[in-house]
């Protein structure tokens, strides 16, 4: 009974840990928290890295540990990054998607049809512009300011914007 409550508390504090590169999204919003286990001796948290080379990974691990310590009392805190299952963009929660959009990063699932891979600039990537809502957009490049972002351009409001890279 207490275990369940403690696990719930751990998830609550993890929901306050932001991705430093997308501060509006917590690691829970991004679907990075795979497993939480707690008993009288220890609290274990398994996290999934979004992109393997994400430079924010180490900071996220440290911040998660700091947050969990708040509710850990005498217990040992163990934060691990694991690779199974592979993190995919499907794991981002509805709240996370809304926060991304608000932050100005288009979530790729704002597209009407199925996944389209657009390696070089190509009209009609169809991702919804986070500023004006138009889908008259093109993807300029699959590679952006961080490993997880792509670059788009909105033909309607003439703004460049970023999109989350689909995985």
């Amino acid at each position, binding site marked *: 009974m207490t275990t369940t409550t403690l696990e719930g508390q751990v998830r609550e504090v993890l929901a306050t840990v932001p991705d430093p590169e997308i501060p509006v999204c917590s690691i829970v919003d991004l679907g990075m928290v795979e497993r939480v286990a707690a008993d009288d001796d220890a609290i274990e948290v398994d996290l999934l890295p979004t992109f393997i080379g994400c430079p924010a990974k180490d900071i996220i691990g440290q911040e998660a540990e700091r947050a969990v310590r708040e509710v850990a009392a005498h217990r040992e805190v163990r934060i691990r990054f694991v690779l199974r299952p592979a993190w995919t963009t499907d794991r981002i929660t509805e709240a996370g998607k809304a926060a991304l959009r608000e932050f100005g990063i288009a979530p790729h699932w704002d597209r009407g049809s199925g996944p389209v891979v657009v390696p070089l600039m190509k009209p009609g990537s169809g991702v919804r512009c986070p500023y004006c809502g138009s889908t008259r957009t093109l993807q300029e490049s699959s590679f*952006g300011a961080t*490993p997880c972002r792509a670059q788009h351009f909105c033909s309607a409001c003439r703004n460049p914007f970023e999109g989350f890279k689909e995985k």
Partner: protein
Amino acid sequence: MPDEDGRLSLLLSLADDELIIGHRHSEWTGWAPHLEEDIAFSSIGQDEMAHARLLYELAEPLAGRTPDELALGRQPKEYRNAVICERPNGDWGYTIARHYLYDTADDVRTRALEASSWSDLADAVKVIRLEETYHLDHARAWFTRLAQGPVTARDRLTRGLEQAVAESLALFEAPAGEEALLADGVVARSSEDLLAEWLGQLGSDLEAASLDYVLAAHAPVGDLVPTSSGEAEERPTLEVPGIERRDGRWVHTGAFAGEGGRRGRHGEDFQALWEEMTALYRQVPGASW
């Protein structure tokens, strides 16, 4: 570096390829033909180095050396990357030719590794492949764009392929101890088997772009394109050793150019790369940044 464990040889082959080509990609930072490509190659390089680190982490208990020690603390002859990865970037044509050859080859070998009986490796490779798909798309898009011309672009791509094709075959030079790895199911298919698949795919791709002559002994297409002075430029005939066309397919028949990378044989290019890449680590061992 002890060679007895086939798993270590395999991991170092994969990781060193990724580290070294990632290092070359990073050299486009600030220099690519336009900003998007500057960012693209920087980002791809960052991904490749992260993949190398992940594989070095798997290698750590086998090698008794940390990922940093493996990446930066070895002597040049201890690196197992294929020679093609260490070649300087040259021009955009060579860069795209090698990027295309490397990433199509990497796609074939990593797909096969998803079936590895070593679950840690299979898991790592699955995650890596979710990112490699973007590299492959990028390489193919640029390959197609340059192949479609204009003449200068196609000519540069052709020269790049002429320089890179032969050595890229050695990406499939078997790591030491492959037989034991096959027996244990750590690798599901032999390097020769993977090379056959890749060569078949490469032949089709090149044929579709009417560039398949780069696999045969040939007079480069540049001979048909006069320079501004009106004179055809002299270029040596290229021969790709170790492959021939049989029944409409390219097959591997023997040794290949650039062989020896998997056993630590590297060229002058590697020495210069290694000196730059490891300079800080050698000056301040154990430095972190």
